[in-house]
């Protein structure tokens, strides 16, 4: 029952902050921009008339549901690293930057439970954001009237989206370690940018399937047909990285000197 208490407290703290609103707005950009690109792609004349935007939009492929759902999955795989990482860094880092951590460390409740409840609430909120992007994305796609709707295509697209989003969420756990050990937001922010950039470089060298932060994007099809390279080992590497993030954060809260 203690874990439920901790979860309810974390939910209270999250929902009384501006983070839900900020992350919802950031997440909503994904379907709206995706829909906007599809809208332009549907009408090439309008696309040419718009110049730069149309040129970018052509890269996205055809105006159909597989391209559109692929675009959403790619956006969640890359943008999610930032959005989900931001949520994670706030949930953990705020305790240090607001110096409220002191109130959480000498309680008749295990520090592990507090850390675990923070992870649970972060992951739940990130999943809600991912579902929001997907639902809103489908709604926008319907409004734009993207051609090529079929149950198989939609299910396939949703499956890729959910896999990419889940793996991206799992990869946010190391951010918690950097927020805790760095006692605030700067370290996790640096870590997120570093992994985001490195993921692109490693993917470009052809070894992306072995670098955890490249895997969700590769699964989403960002590199064209290279998604075929993703095997169980890549998923295992992501899960291992996630577990490492979780355990290192728990270890830090439990054993490190809290000098704040």
């Amino acid at each position: 029952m203690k874990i439920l208490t901790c979860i309810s407290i974390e939910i209270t703290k999250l929902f009384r902050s501006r983070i839900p609103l900020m992350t919802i707005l950031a997440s909503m950009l994904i379907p709206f921009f995706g829909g906007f690109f599809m809208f332009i792609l549907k009408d090439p004349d309008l696309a040419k008339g718009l110049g730069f935007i149309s040129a970018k939009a052509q890269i996205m492929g055809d105006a159909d549901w597989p391209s559109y759902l692929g675009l959403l999955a790619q956006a969640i795989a890359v943008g999610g690293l930032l959005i989900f990482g931001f949520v994670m860094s706030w949930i953990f880092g705020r305790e240090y930057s607001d110096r409220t951590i002191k109130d959480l460390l000498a309680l008749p409740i295990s520090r592990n439970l507090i850390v675990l409840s923070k992870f649970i609430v972060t992951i739940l909120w990130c999943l809600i954001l991912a579902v929001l992007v997907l639902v809103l994305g489908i709604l926008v796609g319907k409004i734009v009237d993207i051609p090529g709707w079929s149950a198989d295509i939609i299910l396939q697209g949703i499956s890729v989206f959910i896999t990419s989003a889940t793996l991206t969420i799992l990869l946010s756990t190391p951010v918690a370690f950097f927020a805790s050990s760095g006692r605030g937001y700067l370290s996790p922010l640096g870590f997120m940018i570093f992994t985001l950039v490195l993921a692109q470089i490693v993917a470009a060298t052809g070894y992306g399937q072995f670098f955890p932060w490249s895997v969700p994007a590769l699964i989403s099809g960002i590199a064209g047909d290279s998604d075929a390279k993703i095997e169980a080992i890549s998923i295992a590497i992501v899960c291992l990285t996630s577990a490492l993030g979780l355990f290192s954060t728990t270890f830090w809260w439990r054993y490190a000197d809290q000098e704040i």
Partner: protein
Amino acid sequence: MKEVISTTNLTKIYGETYAVNKLNLSVKQGEIFGFIGLNGAGKTTTIRMLLGLVKPTTGYCYLQGRRVNAGNTSIFRNVGYIVETPYSYPELTVRENLEIVRKLRGMEDRDSVNWIIKKLKLEGYTSKRAGHLSLGNAQRLGIAKAIIHRPKILILDEPTNGLDPEGIVEVRQLLMNLANNQGVTILVSSHKLEEISRLATNISIIHNGCIIKELDKKQLEGQLKKVLLVGGEERNNMKSILSEAGYRVVDEGIDFNDEIKPLQIQDDDAINSPEKIATLLVKAGHPPALLKVRQEDLESYFLRVLKEAGEV
């Protein structure tokens, strides 16, 4: 009496610096233990180790006879604390912050929040966000969070910081009431030595990580020196007259932290009969402008002890 807070050879080393060095503390039930020292003397590090926030390099801390360890969470059930400035979740109201503490401490009694709000006179601020509180009220909220669960042990680092004089008196009375009527054991560290001298039943002076003086209120009373302060024009002449008459006169004896430093006579005879000094000086044509018996306060005593220890 039962020992409630204790440390055994408690040591914390940062690099090559001993923040705390073989510290042995013993605080008995119902005592208000004043823990004083200069900045960086080791007070807060000791308090952090007592609360399991920092691990000792060597040595141990005990609360109610049980060894402190971050994993031993049940030990903190009866402990309330403030470490330096208390902080609360700024976006949450006073009531919400207190509710969080109540829940984290596993307290079923929902009235405890109302009780502590009333006790700390926070009724007018229950719906106010903690981030919008004044320094004094934020401090009250911190104290409220520390005692909401009616702890048996209170470990307070600078509990009266930011409080107005009325708030300081209220908190002092509250703590004295907890110790005297409910047997709560309190370890309190503060820079406000006057406050500590009024509050504490026992005092410990920590310096460079070591306890250099430990005494109870009675012993302290016996150690506070009295001097006769003599001031006036032509100070040097007055000093010569008094010295020739056989009195022990010093320019700067006890440091009362005053701007003007009058002469100090430490002889019991002068302290008990200051009129003799007045007569002597008047006859010599140097009537004193100031003639006052003054006893050391805790601040002066503290400075003297540090001076004797080779510092300040």
